[in-house]
């Protein structure tokens, strides 16, 4: 009977997938969810590949997953993955189902899976990753993720004992996950410009977990990322095994030392420091898995950092950039705002369009996160105008005023496309940034394309 349920689950799951695909649907969650409904331990009974790599963490997991999948593909491997699908239990089961025979045998040797932090609860009892990268843990959506201790608690409970971890030495929250498990640490050495305290609003670990005294940061990169120690007991940040010693933007290189002190040089995959973390995390894992530096240099490349997260177009002398800035995730938003702040240009304009349209349709979006996000980064003379579009524009306006942005620089519009006029009004701007939420790239590109037409037309 048990076997019968399993075969039925596999059959139905595969059928739903085929039908959904024929109908032109994404088919990422539903086949897996239905299979779980028919046979709750379907994932447990499906045969597994020889190597399973999981990637979790608040920010960067999609990028790291894509980098690793691309690496293995370029090396000629066929990889089970959920990169076009979903990172919750249903999505992971779908990924295995479509790579299994009807009898449940696995057709490929490797699985690389992005796993939503909370979904480890439903996934890990049935599928034990050999390796798990946790990029970082930060406060995230209030509604789904509550706070980092809640998420770390779930991960601690469900990360299997045999899973080896690749964790961020500069993150005092995720580096302490599943403390009994074997692990390697990655990190980035202190940069010249980094100070003893970060000016960010949100900091998810500030006191010693052993004795409650305020931690002293040796340096703080952003939020709680950096190195810290307790002045009262021996608690301190761990040392990184794979450490970015140098970020050389002019030479477009990063220098990484390995656990035995060898010094390696790699092409920098992105200037953005969050992507340098993603790069060193991949280097750490791939080295541990036995790949040599030549392989990593050749097959870990820039193209894995996808355009839907960051894109640039040139329009009559103005650069227009779209940036994913996950609404409701105050840290991802702050990282995007920090990037704008540090971007070298005499004049900048910003469009913030991060409302959750789904929540607005059903009710009203919870906007608490605005007060954890560092909109203060936009209060510089170079930022000439900030346009906020969407149903929550008036809430954003209050937040922007409190962040020190003068009222005359703030424009609110209800409809996102109305932002085009407001952005085009300021003449001769060097850089325009469009911040959009996860499902907003299509809408953001539409705004960008119209804006481009306008600016090119005016320039001609």
């Amino acid at each position, binding site marked *: 009977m048990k076997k019968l349920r399993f075969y039925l689950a596999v059959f139905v799951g595969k059928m739903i997938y085929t039908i959904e695909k024929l109908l032109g649907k994404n088919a990422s969650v539903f086949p897996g969810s239905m299979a779980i409904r028919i046979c709750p331990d379907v994932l447990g009974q499906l045969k597994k590949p020889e190597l399973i790599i999981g990637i979790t963490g608040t920010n960067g997991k999609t990028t790291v997953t894509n980098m690793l999948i691309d690496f293995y593909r370029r090396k000629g491997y066929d990889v089970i993955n959920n990169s076009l699908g979903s990172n919750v239990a249903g999505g992971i089961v779908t990924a295995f189902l479509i790579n299994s025979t009807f009898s449940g045998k696995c057709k490929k040797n490797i699985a690389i899976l992005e796993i939503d932090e909370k979904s480890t609860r439903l996934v890990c009892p049935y599928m034990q990753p050999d390796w798990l990268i946790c990029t970082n843990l930060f406060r995230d959506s209030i*509604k789904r993720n509550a706070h980092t201790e809640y998420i770390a608690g779930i991960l601690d409970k469900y990360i299997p004992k045999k899973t080896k971890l690749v964790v961020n030495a500069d993150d005092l929250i995720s580096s302490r996950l599943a403390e009994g498990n074997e692990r390697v640490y990655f990190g980035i050495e202190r940069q010249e410009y980094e100070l003893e305290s970060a000016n960010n609003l949100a900091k998810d670990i500030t006191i010693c977990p052993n004795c409650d005294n305020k931690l002293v940061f040796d340096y703080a990169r952003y939020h709680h990322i950096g190195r810290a120690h307790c002045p009262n007991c021996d608690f301190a940040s761990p040392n990184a095994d794979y450490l970015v010693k140098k970020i050389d933007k002019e030479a477009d290189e990063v220098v990484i030392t390995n656990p035995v002190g060898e010094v390696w040089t790699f092409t920098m995959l992105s200037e953005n420091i969050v992507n340098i973390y993603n790069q060193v995390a991949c280097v750490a894992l791939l080295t541990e898995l036995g790949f040599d530096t030549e392989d990593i240099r050749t097959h870990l490349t820039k193209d894995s950092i996808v355009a839907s997260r960051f894109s640039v177009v040139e329009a009559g002398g103005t650069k227009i950039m779209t940036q994913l800035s996950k609404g409701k995730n105050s840290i991802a938003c702050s990282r995007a705002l920090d990037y704008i702040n540090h971007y070298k240009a005499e004049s900048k304009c910003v469009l913030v369009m991060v409302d959750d349209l789904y929540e607005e349709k059903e009710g009203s979006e919870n906007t608490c996160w605005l007060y954890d996000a560092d909109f203060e980064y936009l209060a510089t003379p170079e930022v000439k105008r900030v346009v906020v579009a969407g149903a929550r524009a008036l809430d954003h306006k209050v937040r922007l005023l409190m962040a020190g942005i003068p009222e005359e620089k703030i424009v609110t519009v209800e409809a996102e496309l109305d932002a085009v006029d407001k952005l085009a009004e300021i003449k001769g701007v060097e850089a325009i940034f469009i911040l959009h939420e996860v499902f907003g790239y299509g809408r953001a590109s539409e705004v960008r394309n119209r804006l481009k037409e306008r600016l090119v037309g005016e320039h001609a």
Partner: protein
Amino acid sequence: MLRIEILYPEVCNLYGDMGNVQYLKFCYPDATFIETALTDRPAFADSDVDMIYMGSMTERIQEKVVDRLKEYKEQLQACIDKGTVILFTGNAYELMGQYIEDEGRRIDCLGFFPYYAKREMMKRHFSVILAEFEGMDVVGFKDQFTMAYDHDDAKAFMKIIKGEGHHEGAMFEGVRYNNFFGTYLLGPFLIMNPRFMKYLMGLLGTEECKLAYEDAVMAAYEKRCHEFRTKSVIK
């Protein structure tokens, strides 16, 4: 000059609650703000303060905060009795009740008020509410693992117009006693409720209440009140 004490901001700072402190600083640029850390002795224990604020925290920190505040229970009681303005938002407010029940475990709280909270870590409640306090509309967000029971509704903070109160189906939300205000509503409560903010400033003895960024804050408030009246509130 006003003295405003913020309790444990290094840990009681979840869900944008620190927006309230930022806003108080804008409305009272000359006030003295005392930020008390978990390992510090609170200012209210030894001297007069005009206002005390505490925001949301993790469940682990709740227990630490209760332990700390138990040492100063008498002084806190004295503050409540003499009418010090106190605002506890999110799960900070739970600590003023009898206890928190967590899967059979009982965490004793400060016991100032009769209610208790029941925690279910796998069941997160989120909603928005529209309520009434002294003829004013109050709007806010709830995102919590707990529900509260056994209130003395004569001491309720606000009457629900739309949404859930202390627990599902309850008609009231929070506690108001003298100038103590406790509510599950979290995040930038004072910014979202400029009329209540003015009321609070009145309690602090401010005669002409001019809010920071008043026009923008009022416009956002009126839009939200209208939406909460006309749209669905449970997400």
